[in-house]
């Protein structure tokens, strides 16, 4: 899957050329770039270099990137792929037709790498379509690009475009083993999302959403919850969507508007049942380790050898919540992924994952680990 993974601090334009040349060597089939948002990245200046490349190059801007087990707010992680790939670019998810080009997924496709705009609406139809056309033991891994500070900036790019509101999907003819976990614990519920419009949660149990949520969170934290401190306080109390098999899919509350509505990180269906959950740092850290173990076990069982690289897609809100202890989360992953496994990836706004045996899920506040060689 991954031929090589490199890091470049991105400070100067002239450093890009050797960085890209190095990645494209040795018959690489495509280059995936994760750019940290504080990197001085000027697409107009870099595009001519990208256009010169004879292989597919694509990527996104993220709050921070991960390389060799460390977090970087500035810099670029480049990942050269070694297996045949095909790329599908959806410029606008709101206009997504529900179909892909005929030969996008071949019978040899084993995994899909998905980069989407973390602030775009209409991600569920994309996921539903991917699920319909998936076959065999295909696995899925991806995450949302973007920044918590700015919802409108362009954040995805290919050799030809720099755009917002869309997604880039790569079909790869190689296997990547997936592990997913979050570690958040339910403390209240169930409640009904009685009025929802996309990512805007308007009412809970037929009461204004913020009023209801505030009451629970204030009781639990003892902190008065206001529009001003909302993200800071609510990051420890996300919503959870219920599934049958003791599984909870999280939705992160981001801010409250003047009408007492709560803006969520991803959509929830109207009338769905929600739990209010709480984070305990050690449980989150342990859960990340379990995700790494899950993916490593799956990889070793299928490939009968040890992995060499682990792609980590970790929700930005986990890093904000864990603060200094986020390092422990990365260490926990490192321990379980194997000593000789190189950890790389990015902090995301929403995570997409499936182990290939059930529905593809759009997660929040989760860590997704893809292990390959």
């Amino acid at each position: 899957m991954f031929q090589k993974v490199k890091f470049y601090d991105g400070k100067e334009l002239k450093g890009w050329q050797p960085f890209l040349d190095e990645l494209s060597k040795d018959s690489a089939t495509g280059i995936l770039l994760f750019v940290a948002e504080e990197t001085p990245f000027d697409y107009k200046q870099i595009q001519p270099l990208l256009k010169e490349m004879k292989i597919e190059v694509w990527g996104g801007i993220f709050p921070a990137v991960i390389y060799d087990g460390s977090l970087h707010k500035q810099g670029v992680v480049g990942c050269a792929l070694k297996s045949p790939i095909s790329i599908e670019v959806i410029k606008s998810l709101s206009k997504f037709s529900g179909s892909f080009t005929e030969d996008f997924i071949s019978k040899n496709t084993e995994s899909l790498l998905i980069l989407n705009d973390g602030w775009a609406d209409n991600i569920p139809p994309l996921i539903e379509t991917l699920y319909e056309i998936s076959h065999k033991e295909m696995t899925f891994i991806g995450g949302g690009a973007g920044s918590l500070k700015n919802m409108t900036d362009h954040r995805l790019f290919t050799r030809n475009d720099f755009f917002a509101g869309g997604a880039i999907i790569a079909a790869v003819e190689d296997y990547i083993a997936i592990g997913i976990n979050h570690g958040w614990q339910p403390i209240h519920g169930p409640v009904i999302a009685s009025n929802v419009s996309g990512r805007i949660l308007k009412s809970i149990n037929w009461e204004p959403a913020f009023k209801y949520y505030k009451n629970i969170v204030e009781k639990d934290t003892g902190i008065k919850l206001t529009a001003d401190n909302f993200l800071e306080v609510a990051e420890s109390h996300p919503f959870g969507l219920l599934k049958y098999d003791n599984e909870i899919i999280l939705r992160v509350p981001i801010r409250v508007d003047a009408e007492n509505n709560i803006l969520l990180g991803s959509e929830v269906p109207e009338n769905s049942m929600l739990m209010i959950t709480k984070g305990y740092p050690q449980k989150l850290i342990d859960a990340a380790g379990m995700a790494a173990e899950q993916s490593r076990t799956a990889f070793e069982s299928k490939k009968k050898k040890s992995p060499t690289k682990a792609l980590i897609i970790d929700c930005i809100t986990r890093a904000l919540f864990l603060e200094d202890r986020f390092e422990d989360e990365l260490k926990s992953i490192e321990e379980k992924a194997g000593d000789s496994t190189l950890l790389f990836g990015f902090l995301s706004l929403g995570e997409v994952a499936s182990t290939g045996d059930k529905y593809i899920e759009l997660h929040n506040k989760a860590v997704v680990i893809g292990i390959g060689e």
Partner: protein
Amino acid sequence: MEKQNTSIIQKLGVSYECALAIGNSLDLAEMFHEVIHTIVHKTNAHRGIIWFRGEKEKDFRPIASAGIRIKDVLVQKGISSLNKRFKQILKRQQFVLVNKDEKDFLRYCTILTGKEESVLIIPIKNIAMIHLIYASREIVNKGLVNLLSALSQKLSVAIDACLAHKRVVEEICVREKAEEQLKKKTEQFISSQKEIKRLFAESEESRKALLSILEDATETQNALQKSEKRFRDVAVNTGDWIWETDEKGRYTYCSPVVKQVLGYEYNEVLGKYFYDFFHPDEREELKKAAFEVFKKKEAFKNFINQNVHKNGHTVILETSGIPMLDDKGNLVGYRGVDRDITERRKMEEEVLKAQKLESLGFLAGGIAHDFNNILTAILGNISLVKMYVKPEEEVFEILTEAEKASLRAKDLTQQLLIFSRGGEPIKKTTSIGRMIKDSTSLALTGSNVRCKFSIAEGLWLVNIDEGQISQVISNLIINANQAMPEGGTIEVKAENIIVGKEQILPLQDGKYIKISIKDQGIGIPKEHLPKIFDPYFTTKQKGSGLGLASTYSIIKKHDGYITVESGVGVGTTFHIYLPASEEKITISERETEELTKGEGKILLMDDEDIVLKVGGRLLKHLGYEVEFARDGTEAIALYKKAKESGQPFYAVILDLIVPGSMGGKEAIKKLIKVDSEVKAIVSSGYSNDPVMADYRKYGFSEVITKPYKIEELGQVLYRVIKESKYK
């Protein structure tokens, strides 16, 4: 939150959302799509297909799928063989669950991706099949099968509704086609009239010829007048507003029905633009959309738009129109019809609301049953362990805390059931004073409102379902609290009254407890007072409108009465009347926690192992000998055998519902035939079944709701056995 509780809540959540997906659309394919995606997603299935067979169709065909496209299902091998299996399933009307290591697996699993472990097929009447494939066989347990079987019953009702709706839509299409033809004929007559006029003006010299034409024309005109009259009759009497506009959207014709629809005379509408009547919130958006259609000169159908009535209220219209073109194909205007669907929309919303609650209530009942069985084991074991510990020891305190937590979990079940509004009251004679105070205090937790109690001494006893009446008090206190956002005082009064002829109350003469709850809030306007107990009536912006409706229903089920006095700015007072009970307080209501021990043989019947295990322990500790049965049939056999051996059972505890086998309701009928003086106690976690409320009518001597503490079990047995002939 305890892991066990979370798991049960998760199952309830999944049941609820799957049940909601059913009936979300009246289009069959759309509904099936929604249902299969929800089931597959929420139950972590690998793939899922719904197969459907129309009235005259021989074979099932895939109509909706998740995780695989229908066209890919159709090319799978073994579909005809699968159809044969479906027909066998139909005959038995039972689900089929096949695991990978069973020999027939491949006959049921036509899709092969290498991850399939279990296949579950659930029939829906004789018309459809839910076909689910799981990659983990651990998920497909008894609970999941029960859940999906329950959903399939609901789905069959929804399918009937979709098919009925389809027939109605077809009928409407036929009618619309006929109306369209009538319009065309009318247009033809109008154009022939114009042609005649043109000829008339053309030449004096052709008078003779023209006269002859006019003779024909007179006949045509008569026909035309008749046709025009027919058109006018249709336009006036149809109930739909018929109109024409010019190419800019200005009304050039308008049937008088517009008065009924929008409140304007037709001549007030002529010359106005169609978008002048749109609701301001969506005017620009709809105007833009409409002119897009104008630009393309397209016909449109069932375009939903909100308009403002002359008196200010919103009217929802369904608009259909066709373009009018000149000889060169230029747009000269639109002709169409508007139907007022405001009432229909309201009805649809109400039906949906009711359906949501019904779905939740239906499933909550089932889940609560399982939940309470588990709690019976937890609570029973705790109360048993407490017997071995001295009250002054620290362990005793810890166990008491655990016991309280279990009782809180029991309350959680009750909270889930609040949504359902269902359930016959399970009445017990009790004193209501303490309960009023407790419920009030609980409802005001965290509020800035104070409460002043005036509970009369020597309050008569009442025969009530404590849970339901506590809910009533909570509902009224919460309303009172919300009516005083700035704080204030709520006065709660309880007193004895005798209702006689002098009181104008819809109650039988007799003794009653009157509870009054008075707030200092904003009050209810006079015009709202007659409606406040109607379902879905609410003055709160986000209220469900069910609180007072369920309050009313609960009081009515207790043969009581509720009334309200209110004035804007003065406050609101609710008065509740509950009949006083002549019975003495039952032993279980004593404030004592003493253990009532006994002796003799007890037969305990329940399908849950944990209930049997803990129930057995509790009974032994209470001094009884115990034997177990797993269903009604086994219980009857054991009872007969014991009676014949001369060592009969003093009492029998029967679980009301035993899935797939004989439960307590059926068993008691047969036990009475064996022994007319059998002493039986009915036990259940939760049920809407009237047996729990009216157990004596069905032949039971007592009732005990799960989960129960050892003290409660001891007291119930004591009351039953003291009347047993075998004691």
